[in-house]
């Protein structure tokens, strides 16, 4: 036991936790400050007046009181993005290749997880499950989703990417886009033939939908509750666990060392006796498993999934990976959090600040604009990529 404990590299386990707290707090503070400054400025203008007429509260108070909830929401979705982004970043770090199909691998994970739960539900197992068993079933679904997604990722790499590894950069990317489209319809085909349905809905069980109330605040004539639902907590905790585990795998194990070696230089790594193909498969496996777990968590959080469920989260997660510095794991984390926060802050306040002229419908444009701005002005991302372009 002691030897086992000794073999665990404690700092490597804890380091990402510290980074997490730091990034989350930092982003929250910066964004909150920006929003508050805007609110202060706009409060005197017609924007503040309109809001006052409607809700009988000043724009600044409105902004301030909503802030904690917005921050929590932003953080939750941020962690979802971060978990998906890790899949992009792992593959990019090793192969310098954008795995466009990762979003569908994520979707497959979500579908398998949800199908497992629906099957359990059909046998009436879920309805009567105790709280502990509910969590066991959830974990079962997550594991199922991870295995399916991981396996699929490996298969896709084998079939559609490996034969193209030495072609020019765009060739595997086009193939990946093809895989992405193919998988979307494949999911639909399988779902429609087996279930006749197009949407799948995460069954209601356990206490996941309950909300932990953290506080109540008066806003004009109404009361705002500050809270976080249990499923959001599950999402955050699982995402953190995944990040920590992945970080440990890559930075403190032998396999991780091999992965890093392959990322540095394929030929040299193979000269050192590393089976490059196996490591690449492993990378896809790990990336896919993370994506699959994220998929099930996504379904848990948002209830309804369809075959195209992966597209937007996938694109956002890719943005997050680029934002943080693609190829860099900590960067993916930071990117996910920053993007989730930015998006939620923008979505929550833009409508109020522009008097309804540009509301949440511009949320996605916001994410794309960030992607474009980052790529233009800081293509290496916030943290800086650990892979330089091979000239």
């Amino acid at each position, binding site marked *: 036991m002691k030897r086992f404990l000794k073999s665990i590299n404690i700092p490597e386990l804890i380091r990402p936790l510290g980074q997490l707290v730091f990034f989350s707090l930092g982003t929250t503070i910066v964004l909150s400050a920006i929003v508050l400054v805007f609110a202060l400025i706009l409060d005197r203008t017609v924007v503040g007046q309109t809001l006052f007429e409607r809700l009988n509260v000043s724009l600044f108070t409105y902004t301030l009181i*909503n802030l904690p909830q917005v921050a929590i929401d932003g953080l939750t979705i941020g962690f979802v993005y971060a978990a998906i982004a890790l899949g992009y970043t792992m593959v990019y770090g090793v192969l310098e290749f954008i795995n466009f199909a990762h979003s569908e691998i994520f979707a497959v994970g979500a579908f398998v997880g949800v199908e497992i739960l629906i099957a359990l539900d059909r046998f009436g197992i879920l309805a009567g499950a105790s709280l502990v068993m509910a969590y066991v079933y959830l974990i079962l679904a997550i594991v199922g989703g991870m295995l399916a997604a991981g396996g699929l990722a490996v298969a896709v790499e084998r079939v559609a990417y490996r034969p193209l590894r030495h072609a020019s950069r765009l060739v595997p990317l086009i193939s990946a886009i093809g895989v992405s489209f193919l998988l979307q319809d494949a999911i639909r085909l399988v779902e429609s033939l087996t279930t006749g349905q197009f949407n799948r809905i995460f069954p209601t069980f356990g206490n996941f*939908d309950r909300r932990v109330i953290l506080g109540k605040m008066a*806003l004009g004539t*109404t009361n705002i509750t500050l809270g976080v639902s249990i499923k959001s907590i599950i999402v955050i905790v699982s995402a953190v666990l995944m990040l920590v585990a992945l970080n440990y795998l890559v930075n403190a194990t032998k396999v991780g060392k091999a992965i890093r070696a392959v990322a540095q230089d394929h030929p040299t790594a193979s000269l050192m006796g590393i089976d490059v193909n196996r490591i690449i498969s492993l990378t896809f496996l790990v990336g896919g498993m993370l994506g699959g777990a994220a998929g099930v968590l996504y379904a848990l959080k948002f*209830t*309804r999934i369809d075959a195209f469920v992966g597209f937007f989260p996938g694109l956002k997660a890719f943005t997050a990976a680029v934002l943080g510095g693609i190829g860099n794991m900590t960067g993916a984390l930071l990117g996910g959090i920053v993007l989730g926060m930015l998006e939620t802050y923008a979505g*929550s306040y833009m*409508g109020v600040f522009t008097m309804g002229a540009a509301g949440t419908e511009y*949320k996605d444009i916001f994410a794309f604009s960030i992607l474009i701005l980052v790529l233009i002005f800081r293509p290496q991302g916030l943290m800086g990529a650990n892979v330089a372009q091979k000239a």
Partner: protein
Amino acid sequence: MTKRFWIVFSLLIAVGMVFIGPAAAADQIIKIATQSPLSGDNSAVGVDIKRGAELALEQMSAPLAKMGFKVELAPFDDQANPDAGVANAKRIVSDPAILAVVGHYNSGVQIPSSEVYHTSGLANVSPANTNPKVTTRGYLEVNRIVGRDDVQGVVGADFAAGKKVKSVFVVHDKTAYGQGIAEFFKKRAEEKAMKVLGFEGTEEKANFDSLLSPILAGNPDLVYFGGMYGQAAVLFKQAREKGYMGMFLSDDGFDSTDAVKIGGQTLLDGAGTFYSTVSGPATIYPGTAKFITDFKAKYNASPQPFAAQGYDSMGISLKAIEAAAKAGGNKLPTREAVSKAIRALQDYAGITGKFTFNSIGDPTVAKYFVIQVTSPDPAKWNDNPVVETLDIAPPK
């Protein structure tokens, strides 16, 4: 290599053609097309529109058969996509045997597709399209047997006013349908002196957090959603989870068992969930008992919303073709004659009401319902009680 491939390919096709020969053109065949989403998101409803029409064709084509016509159904899948709808429409009008189209679930598809029907003089009876523009273009060929969004939005707002709603937040799904209905709701709500705290469109299907924060801050008496259940139910569920306890109101896009599968108990909490619709559950119509039994017998499933309307649209088409054929001396009627015959029908007794069309193709009186969600069990969706029924003539 490639060249030879093409030669062989072309030759093969040519030879094949010689063997198949020109398909024998069977005269005296009458086809009635359906166009609805048979696949994809809206397919549950779309398939049942087709099934309703199919059932009607089976049961009511006897008079035409007696005249020596073989009546066939030609179902098309518009995929809820305007491009697919228009391409199908061109295909449909190019088949001279097709004399009428029952169709479209989505107004966004019906409007461009019916331009094609219009130019070819092909009659179209719509079982479900509620956008005003469907008929306000004034085409002779285009008719519908349901109400209109500009009325349905008003029905919703009037219902809300009746429930003493003082403030409302309006959300829509950024589709032609959802936004249209929401705009009319908003207009009427303002007339009724309700405070419209916000009017937002969103394509988001999962994460409504950022949309919910202004809703929660404003804490309106009612949240109105113009659009489909897939978004509405998720939004409502998330709103409840965040502590909103007011009333939800949506439109006939909400009418699907999946809505309650998603929302579950949350739809029943607080001030409850209601939706307005132009198509009540089949059970509510006087003549539908037999339809439901027949439908269940044939398809082994309960009819989805608009199945009965599909049945009636087909019935109207058959009746009009019969009338036109009789007027033409039992000969195959022209498309124009069929279109005119539909407009000429008086008090056609369908299972969802008596239909007479006005000069632009709206029914002279249409029924509107407001239904409350009372059970979290998807199986009991059709038992949800109708809390209000209105007969309203289309606006001038």
